[in-house]
């Protein structure tokens, strides 16, 4: 029988350490919505999403009450629109984004991901239309998230797309300049994107996924931090063991919620994403974990090692706790969504270059980083190329979510609001890379991609 100690431990984790299930994301295939007429396509998309996700939010709220654990976000991911809208004769997909936004509002989810294209080896006609539609789509919608996969370990890097995305990010920033270039916070450029990621802004329902499924993202930086505070000054073996044990418990809570949600909604359970995802709330921070591990600030020498340890042990602890682990699974290091990361930037401890090094060992990339509004498209493309190279060579997902804040310079603050937080504008290396980016073409796949 459950002991009083165990009940107390769980409830303290929830009430004091911000243990929660970060997101229940319903993946919906739009493969059967194809139609030459754009209006008909949009109607089919709207009808399908609102039918399948009708009870998503209610089910999430019921589970929250039944188990007494907060489920912060209920979200939707859909088939990349560049694939789903392929059969239409449209020349712009902005109206598709507006349809997705309406559907998201109707069912009450705060974000819907999948205004996406997978162009790691080249563009289809539909991919071009989608990418050209991104800046306007993100300016006129509130809840739609977009992502573009520009490289993979199997295919190499599509450098034409890298260059293009530098321009698209700038245009998106300019179209939302009145809101601190907020549009860019909903746009992710990936290398090795995963198809079952439940976390925004990079979620989409990949072509290999089923008709409909439930993916769950667990979190819990606060719980890990507290567990490590209790074992201060121990050696690395005990440190790792503590992270593993904590990750195990956190993941088990997510697994329970995922299975129960899938059962109630009558759709299969896809996977659990074991990620430590911070929020702007104090105590819910990855950078605070670094402090407890013995680093004065995130960015101090040792930070990459600390992140590698954290990431690896979250996976080791979580893998045994869930029957299906997927998504990104690791630690997220978004600057604007993590209070102690923001402080590290403001104190000059954390630079863009150190963040880049950190992305070699964690699950994502340069995430929610505000850069000066006058940063050129080719410089942004250069940063994307660097991150994509890290992902391609190391067989891992890397992502870039940069926000060139129009009208703001280094040290000024960009405000995004809510879960997206705020971020100080970070300096970017000013040396030119335009001739390199302008070469165009495709970087061949690395030698270790030939595994067959």
């Amino acid at each position, binding site marked *: 029988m*459950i002991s009083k100690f*165990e*009940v107390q431990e769980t409830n303290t984790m929830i009430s004091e350490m911000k243990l929660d299930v970060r997101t229940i994301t319903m993946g919906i295939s739009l493969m059967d919505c194809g139609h030459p007429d754009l209006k008909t396509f949009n109607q089919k998309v709207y009808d399908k999403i609102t039918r399948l996700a009708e009870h998503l939010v209610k089910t999430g709220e019921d589970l929250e009450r039944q188990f007494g654990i907060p489920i912060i976000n209920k979200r939707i991911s859909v088939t990349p629109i560049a694939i789903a809208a392929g059969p239409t004769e449209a020349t712009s997909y902005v109206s598709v984004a507006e349809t997705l936004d309406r559907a998201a509002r109707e069912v009450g989810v705060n974000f819907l991901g999948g205004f996406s294209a997978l162009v790691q080896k080249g563009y289809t006609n539909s991919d071009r239309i989608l990418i050209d539609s991104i800046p306007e789509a993100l300016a006129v919608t509130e809840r739609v998230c977009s992502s573009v996969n520009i490289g993979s370990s199997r295919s190499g890097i599509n450098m034409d797309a890298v260059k293009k995305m530098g321009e698209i990010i700038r245009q998106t920033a300019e179209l939302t300049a009145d809101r601190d270039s907020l549009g860019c916070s909903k746009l992710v450029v990936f290398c090795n994107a995963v198809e079952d990621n439940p976390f925004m802004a990079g979620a989409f329902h990949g072509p290999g996924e089923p008709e409909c499924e439930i993916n769950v993202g667990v979190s819990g930086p606060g719980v890990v931090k507290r567990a490590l505070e209790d074992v201060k000054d121990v050696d690395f073996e005990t440190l790792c063991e503590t992270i593993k044990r904590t990750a195990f*418990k956190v993941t*088990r809570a997510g697994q329970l919620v995922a299975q129960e949600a899938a059962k109630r909604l009558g759709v299969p359970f896809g996977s659990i994403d074991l990620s430590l995802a911070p929020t702007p709330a104090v105590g819910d921070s990855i950078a605070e974990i670094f402090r407890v591990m013995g680093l004065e600030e995130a960015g101090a020498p040792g930070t990459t090692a600390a992140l590698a340890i954290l990431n690896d042990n979250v996976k080791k602890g979580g893998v045994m706790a869930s029957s299906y682990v997927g998504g990104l699974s690791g630690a997220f290091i978004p600057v604007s969504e993590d209070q102690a990361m923001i402080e590290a930037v403001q104190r000059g401890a954390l630079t863009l270059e150190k963040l880049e090094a950190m992305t070699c060992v964690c699950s994502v990339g340069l995430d929610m980083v505000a850069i000066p509004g006058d940063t050129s498209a080719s410089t942004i493309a250069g940063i994307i190329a660097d991150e994509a190279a890290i992902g391609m060579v190391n067989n891992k997902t890397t992502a870039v979510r940069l926000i060139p804040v129009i009208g703001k310079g280094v040290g000024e603050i960009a405000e995004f609001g809510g879960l997206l937080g705020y971020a100080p504008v970070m300096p970017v290396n000013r040396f030119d890379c335009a001739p390199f980016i302008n070469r165009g073409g495709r970087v061949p796949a690395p030698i270790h991609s030939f595994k067959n």
Partner: protein
Amino acid sequence: MKGIITVLGKDQVGIIAKVCTYLAEQNVNILDISQTIVQDYFNMMMIVDISNPAKAFENLITDLHDLGLTIGVEIKLQHEDIFNSMHRI
């Protein structure tokens, strides 16, 4: 199906009586009960059988929470699965 009730708050006369009276009205059987008082702070955990309650589980959660508000303590009812999954392999 079992539920776990936790009660936390300043100690006073009749906390257990009020909770138990409500549970009896709802046909909820108490399987285990343990209670401690540390520095005037009342801390109780109950394991209850919720296979056949008079009201739906969701309503029991709300009622107990509201009952807690009237007494001035915090009462939570949670499905046992959350604890089983986190603490048992």
